[in-house]
């Protein structure tokens, strides 16, 4: 019986080898996407953030997205600091008010970030991939989130979906501070994941 088992084993080895060689090109490797840290990293505060912006900017919100090149260094610095601290909160997201005036209520930003982070299921958590996406949304006086859109594409649909979903699921935040005189708050929230 043993020789028949041996013969069968040899036959199987041959068949597997032939199938293995012939299917080498028919299976495409599934990309292994790995990310190993999750954190909110802020965009740099524009220099003009503390000063009231001219009213024209309200009608041209696209200009707000432009970042002065000198701020790039700052951004990198902030990202590196976020690497050393785990998780939340790094509460200096790039936030503009409706009129372009700076928003300085850090407690509110803490709530905002914690709520969104709680709803964020990062698909690349603890994997070796660095991704960044920016989601734009508006918060009205009652704290209702609206006008959500992806502002900066990370290049990965799954990651983009997860960030938009995190903001969408949050739906409602506490009402804006009473002292805050504007009608709504514009938020450009950066989702950064990586080491």
């Amino acid at each position, binding site marked *: 019986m043993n020789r*028949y088992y041996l013969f069968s084993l040899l036959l199987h080895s041959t068949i597997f080898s032939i199938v293995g060689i012939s299917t080498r090109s028919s*299976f495409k490797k599934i990309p292994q996407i790995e990310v190993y840290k999750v954190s909110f990293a802020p965009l740099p505060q524009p220099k003009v953030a503390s000063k009231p912006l001219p009213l024209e900017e309200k009608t041209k919100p696209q200009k707000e997205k432009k970042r002065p090149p000198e701020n790039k260094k700052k951004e990198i610095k902030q990202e590196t600091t976020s690497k050393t601290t785990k998780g939340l909160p790094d509460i200096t997201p790039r936030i503009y008010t409706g009129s372009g005036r700076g928003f300085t209520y850090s407690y509110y930003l803490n709530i905002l970030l914690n709520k969104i982070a709680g709803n964020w*299921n990062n698909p690349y958590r603890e994997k070796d991939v660095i991704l960044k996406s920016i989601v734009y949304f508006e918060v009205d006086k009652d704290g209702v989130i609206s006008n959500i859109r992806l502002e900066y594409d990370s290049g990965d649909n799954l990651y983009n*979906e997860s960030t938009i979903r995190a903001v969408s699921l949050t739906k409602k935040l506490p009402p804006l501070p009473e002292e805050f005189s504007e009608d709504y708050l514009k938020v450009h929230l950066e989702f950064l994941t990586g080491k």
Partner: protein
Amino acid sequence: MNIFQVFLESGFVAQIIMIILVFSSISSWAIFFKKLHDLKSIRRMNQNFFTSYQIIKNSEEIEKQLYLLDKSSYGKILKSGLEEFKTLKTSSNPKKVELADNIKLAMERTKISEIENLENSLPVLGTIVATAPFLGLLGTVWGIMEAFLEIRARGSAHITVVAPGISDALITTVYGLLVAIPALVFNNSLRSRIIKLDSELDKFISEAFANLKKKLVESEEK
């Protein structure tokens, strides 16, 4: 990337199932080769015996060539019949002819043991045929379950989340069917050959019994 890498990147359960299926496949092919070889050698021996038997039907002459009897199924059956015939012939019982059925019973006993020898290991083949598709199905269900758990954990039904579980599922099904289909063919083929041999042996028993009974009656009359 090839089929081996797909195996290595599969989940633990899928890997276990695939290993069991590979061992089952090796066993089923080994059993098939062994039984095929056994049946072919029995067939060859039977043909040799039958040719001699057609020429010399005289029991005394056959007894002289006993070396032929132990090699084939027909020979073994005839030998047991002849032994019973000799016992009856030499006995002092006056009702010898009435006890002639003992010759047939002896030959049938030998036939049954011959068939049992040939059917040995076939239950293993039958078990592989029955269980391999179910094992594949288990891998499928497990893979799909993992895919859904991934969807729940990540909160996304993106293809990169679902694909690994589904691929595991499909691979185990393919393995299960690749093992079960040849095993089913082997099982049916071997069983049909054994059934054919069984009916041929039955015919031979009837013929040999009639011949020996005739000789017994003749010896009684003398």
